[in-house]
């Protein structure tokens, strides 16, 4: 008997129910918020940007060339030693599409004048990091780019280059 009295002094039945209701209400609110957030998640379309895109044959791209693949949103960059990079054409600053300026041999963003070299490395801010890369593979002499696989990078490393 005494034990029960002590415990009821700490937490009355009324208080227990109040707390239990508040707790359940909180859980319900969280669940509702979760359902709404899940419902609003991006819906990715298949076969569109986000899938694997074949850019062409290895021999289509001469060394030291930059080729735009607009439907894949990337550039196929073949550097001087024959290696390949798939560079996302979206500026890392504010998302504008960066055109390749063949006379200046640079990517120059029209929005805020960020400039990148052939490998996508920042030459002039405000862009905070190099242009992003897509995963590039070479199968039977064909260049395949997985536009669902974006890599953000801070510097240029030779490991990023894919050789045929």
């Amino acid at each position: 008997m005494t034990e029960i009295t002590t415990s009821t002094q700490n937490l009355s039945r009324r208080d227990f129910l109040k707390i239990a209701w508040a707790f359940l209400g909180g859980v319900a609110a969280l669940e509702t918020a979760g359902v709404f957030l899940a419902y609003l998640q991006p819906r990715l379309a298949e076969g569109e940007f986000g899938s694997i895109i074949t850019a062409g044959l290895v021999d289509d791209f001469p060394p030291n060339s930059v080729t735009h693949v607009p439907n894949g949103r990337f550039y196929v960059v073949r550097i001087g030693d024959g290696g390949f990079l798939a560079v996302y054409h979206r500026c890392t600053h504010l998302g504008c599409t960066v055109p390749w300026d063949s006379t200046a041999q640079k990517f120059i963003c029209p929005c805020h004048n960020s400039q990148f070299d052939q490998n996508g490395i920042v030459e002039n801010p405000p862009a905070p990091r190099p242009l992003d890369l897509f995963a590039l593979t070479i199968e039977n002499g064909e260049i395949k780019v997985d536009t669902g696989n974006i890599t953000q990078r801070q510097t240029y490393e030779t490991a990023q280059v894919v050789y045929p």
Partner: protein
Amino acid sequence: MDELNPQPEPSIFQRMRKKLVPEGIPEDDRGRIRMVVDSFILHIHPSKVEASTLKWTYTWGLGGLSALLMTILGLTGIILLNNYTPAAPQAYFDILEVNSNVWFGELIRNLHHWSANLLIVVAMLHLIRVFVTGAYRPPRELNWLIGVVMLLLVLGANFTGYLLPWDQLAFWAITVGTSIISYIPLIGNWLSQLILGGPEVGANTLLNFYSMHISFIPLAIFGLMMYHFWRVRKDGGLTRPKSANQIEDGKVERVTTIPNLVHKELIFALAWTSALLLFSMLVPAPLEGIANPALSPNPAKAPWYFMGLQELLLHFHPLVGAIVIPGIVVVGIFLLPFFDLNLTSVGIYFRSQRGRALTLLAAGLALIATPIWVLLDEYILNWAEWLPTWNTLLSNGLIPLVVILLPLILLDEWMTKKYKADIEERVLFIATFIFTAFIVLTLIGIFFRGPGMSLYLPWNMPISH
């Protein structure tokens, strides 16, 4: 028969009339006016207002004009829905149809467009008026907060509406605008994907923005507007100087709302509606070519009201330019009524003679300092190059932030020490300085930035393509 049914059965029209006006419509003019008064006007206004608050040059009618513009936007917006499909690229073709093949379509669209743009200016001026007359002070703090939230919602409504025509202007302004979101620490990328419905602006973004533009945002604004109006009455009507309109025994002169206030409001609303109609007949809302994700126009600019923000982005690391500085400013605006409490100067423009001088000084300083700083940062300062080993968040973010904050803090110190400025004067000075600087940045962004976002004189601006 006659005893049982002495009067003929009322007709359906009589019964309907009875339901609408149970007491019947009064015979005399006075009675009829009273009926209208009781049922509508006095729901919004008190029956009497202080004469001094009616002075045209005190409020400039800015709150009322905002409400009028919201009404026009609601009506034109509802009707525009009937000729619009929120899908890419159909949305663009629908706008072309509205402009060329729909009766009064272009007029309605222009009216919606120009009212929306005017609303930003008017709501901003309303906020400034309330600030410089100290009208946010107790007990009106809550209404200030609601007003600021509504201003943010109006910006949201404008921004979401900006994408809907699905032309180049819309597509790239929204691309630039939404990329700012991904710089929010930790949740930025996730939030940006959620809002865009994917990695880039696309068909999902259009649907998301459309849904926000026509449901959540207008509903929220409408609810807050009702509360805002009600609080004006609850907090004792408009502010006015303590000394204004006092008749000898300390009483203030009060006049009836009808006709003194209502007639003024009617004339004001009619004049503005005619002006807007005329403007919309003469000046078409901009519409460029259909959105092309592969081709960013040069220059690609955000909507004009975010050009100040975009100008900041040219000078700062995006985390500082787009999140830290605007964040501090918005939080500062929210907190204003909680540290500026001096009630003696409520209702007086710029607080006092000295306040007037300080405001002028702050505005003048900002007017000179801002362009100088923009030119310096554009052509001479290059922290990222001078400190190549530093993280750009430090070299391009923190250092320039300190460089611009230091003079402001020193100025504030000097004012406090030398002129014994009190908190009220310091708030006035700093807020005026920051606000003027922001306007100057916005103007630079709109008129002085050309291809490659380089600086040009407006009359030497190369034609963009």
